[in-house]
């Protein structure tokens, strides 16, 4: 089956990138995980790995062209597989943003690595800094290699991974960390030593460590291996970044839901008649939480360097599950706009999230997030913050409970709410106050919607 190669999401604010260089040309065999092209954006220059093993059957976007992220740039086929007709028909796609910059020659779908805007690349380095791809910089950092000593062989002299590897190879630094037998075995089996955990004295990579990696790579008992697509990679990176940099604390409370449910029931006919829109409990929650945030500005803050930024608007992020991922578009100014506008934005964002047509701004602008599993039989759960936000609210299922009111058993509808906050910014009492206040107001909808 043919595999599509796209420009990956390169950070939440990045919308487009320029392919600097194709490391493979059409017809080349490629291995999953092998670097196949280098893409440059305003913020980063990065190496992109092949999502599959096979033949690079078609390069659709040549080097030097700027395209939006997630643009189809190439197709990988299995050996012997014919390029599906729908791809064969594609000629080099040059999106309008950059069309005028691309010459006729560059539209030919073959790589021309060293013709790519060399001047621009060289100038792109601010203040004469060394031009280096992030992965290469990280490797150099890990190995304590001074990048000044490395000469780049990438386009425009940019330092790529292979340059750092070459610089490391003969040096005593790496050699000391790998036993000779391990090194020889790795070379024979084509195993990259970087990243292998060494179990020898002082972390030295021994033969058994390389053997373990080989075994893991060839173990048939592993079951299906699912290559990470670009969305999954972004999720993986952002979630671990959030989990490991922001110390999370969690708070839970049960909210008596009957008042809010009744409130909705009461206004529903008039609301529908006036706006032609169906008001959901979620919409009421979005508004209620947004208004509650106004009383607790720290919950609408981000943490940057040494400062805490309180954001002027509440853009309410909604966690939307996709078939193979998760995306969090945000309703703009949820604190200011009316319920009808909230419904319109929500419906539109969710629909476009599912069809993959959100703009970067819509994903990026969130200042707080609600993650609801109300439709699932989940009582309550914790969530990981969506960086750089400082709070996320979770909503469990609405359940029936019996309670004792004035000596009589009464039925109540109850929902458990969870709050995760970044403890660097928010103290426990602030978070508790926020959640308690939200509970108080949800149980008295008039207080919320009169914004008292």
């Amino acid at each position, binding site marked *: 089956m043919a595999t599509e190669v796209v420009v990956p999401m390169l950070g939440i604010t990045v919308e487009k990138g320029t392919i600097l260089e194709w490391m493979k040309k059409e017809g080349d065999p490629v291995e999953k995980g092998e670097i196949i092209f280098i893409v440059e954006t305003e913020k980063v220059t990065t190496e992109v790995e092949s999502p599959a093993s096979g033949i690079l059957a078609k390069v659709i976007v040549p080097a030097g062209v700027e395209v939006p992220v997630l643009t189809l740039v190439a197709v990988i086929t299995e050996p012997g597989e014919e390029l599906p007709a729908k791809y064969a028909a594609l000629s080099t796609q040059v999106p309008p943003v950059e069309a005028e910059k691309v010459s006729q020659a560059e539209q030919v779908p073959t790589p021309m690595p060293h013709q790519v805007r060399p001047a621009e690349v060289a100038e792109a380095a601010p203040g004469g800094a060394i031009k280096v791809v992030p992965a290469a910089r990280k490797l150099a950092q890990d190995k304590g290699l001074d990048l000044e000593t490395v000469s780049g062989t990438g386009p425009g002299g940019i330092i790529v991974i292979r340059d750092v590897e070459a610089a490391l190879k003969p040096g005593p630094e790496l050699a000391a960390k790998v*036993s*000779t*037998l391990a090194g020889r075995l790795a070379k*024979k089996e084509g195993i990259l030593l970087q990243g292998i955990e060494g179990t020898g004295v002082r972390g030295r990579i021994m033969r058994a460590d390389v053997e373990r990696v080989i075994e893991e790579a060839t173990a048939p008992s592993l079951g299906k291996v699912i290559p990470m697509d670009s969305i999954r990679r972004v999720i993986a990176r952002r979630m671990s970044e959030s989990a490991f940099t922001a110390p999370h604390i969690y708070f839970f409370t049960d909210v008596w839901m009957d008042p809010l449910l009744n409130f909705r029931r009461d206004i529903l006919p008039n609301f529908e008649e006036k706006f032609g829109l169906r008001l959901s409990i979620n919409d009421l929650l979005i508004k209620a939480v947004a208004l509650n945030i106004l009383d607790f500005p720290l919950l609408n803050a981000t943490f940057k360097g040494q400062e805490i930024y309180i954001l002027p608007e509440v853009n309410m992020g909604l966690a939307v599950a996709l078939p193979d991922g998760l995306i969090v578009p945000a309703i703009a100014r949820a604190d200011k706009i009316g319920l009808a506008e909230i419904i319109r934005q929500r419906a539109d964002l969710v629909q476009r999230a599912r069809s993959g047509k959100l703009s970067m701004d819509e994903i990026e602008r969130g200042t707080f997030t609600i993650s609801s599993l109300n439709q699932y039989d989940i009582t309550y759960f914790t969530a990981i913050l969506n960086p750089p936000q400082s709070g996320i609210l979770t909503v469990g299922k609405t359940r029936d409970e019996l309670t004792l009111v004035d000596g009589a058993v009464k039925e109540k509808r109850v929902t458990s709410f969870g709050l995760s906050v970044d403890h660097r910014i928010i103290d426990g009492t602030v978070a508790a106050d926020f959640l308690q206040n939200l509970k108080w107001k949800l149980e008295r909808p008039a207080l919320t919607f009169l914004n008292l």
Partner: protein
Amino acid sequence: MSGSEGAMYDLAIIGGGPGGYVAAIRGAQQGLKVLLVEKDSLGGTCLNRGCISTKCFIHDGKILEAAKTSQVLTGAEALSIDLGKMVARKRQVVKTLVSGLGKIIQSHGIDVVQGLGVLIAPGRVKVSLPDGSTKEYQTRHVILATGSKPAVPAFIEVDGHYVQTTDEALDSDDIPGRLIIIGGGVIGVEMAGIYRTLDREVTILEMLPDILTTEDAEIRRAMRRLLEQRGVKVHLKARVKEIAVRDNGTDVIFEDEVLGTEVLKADRVLVATSRVPVLDGIDVGKLGLETDGPFVRANERLETNLPGVYAIGDLIGGMMLAHKASAEAEAAVANILGASKEVKPERIPRCIWGFTEIGAVGLTEEEARATGRPVRIGKFPFMNSGAAQALGSVIGFAKIIGDTETGEVLGFHIMGPHATDLIGESVLAMSMESVVEELAEAVRPHPTLSETVMEAAMDWSGLAIDSPKKST
């Protein structure tokens, strides 16, 4: 420093030999509260009745031999060894080491109890004290390190004079004129060297087709030839049937495959057939402790099947060597502390002190070839070594076995002067996963015996310097 009954120990060790005392010191260094139980004398067989004793005698014998074979000393013919002084010196060396060891152990705050340690159950150790009383101790972990003792076939009775094991032999201040050693293993070969150097008549009776059967065939052949050259009679495939003690000697009756039943007369017989584990205080059946033949079974992490109970050293079989026990002691303590350490047998050097020394590590050539890997041999004789010539000790050679493809050092075998010291660098090379070429590349000082190791490694690539060009 005698243990306290009420206390909870982190680690109780039964046996204070090179396994047990190393475990005790390492445990204490790592902050564990350690109890060490020894029924006899700290240092175990190694210090008291084995390695150190034999090395004293071998050294004394070598001095005599060197003097007698010297081309420059005069009057050396009249030299002889005073057996009483030889044994006294050994006792003094042992005493110095044992008391030194005691002080070291004390300095680490280890509680030492003199008595027979009994494992009642995991976590419970009872000690029968010399005065007949008992004490019981609680502990989180136990290391069994009770060691081994000479095995004596059922039909042989050790009387301590006519029939001895090494336990008696190494503390005798008389050595009669004719000796028969039953067993051509490491102990037999070492004792033959000691006795023969003292000008005694020595015969080795070995049941198997060769002596030193764990060693490389070339090494075995060379050592057998050396024994015979020095006048030791080596009788292979000789199955001893009976030892009859007469008025002033013994008749050893044995069966030879070809000659049939034979009788050999001797003034004394040394039984050096093998060693069996010491299980005093370890009631295998009652504890439900799993065994491997006569040995306690321990997995690669040195754990027995009982929770929190580890076993190391001769008790668990394998190579019965002090440094193997010590290495296992360190691994066991590390594992108690949460690591996952193993002791690889192929990294344990084997040492034999005969007329000349043998140092070996890893696979023999036969074993290496049996793996099916591409194997190449490098060799260098001490005859070609300037240092060996100057020392007047040119017997033997160094032999390296390497994987042709990867350069992995599969085995290293040295017979010759200071072979037991020289093997160390090969052990290091193998532990570091260095390759043959690296053993060849490292510069050795000249003139030293260590150059022999380097030249053997060079020869592996056909590049030895002090060897004539190889015919192809």
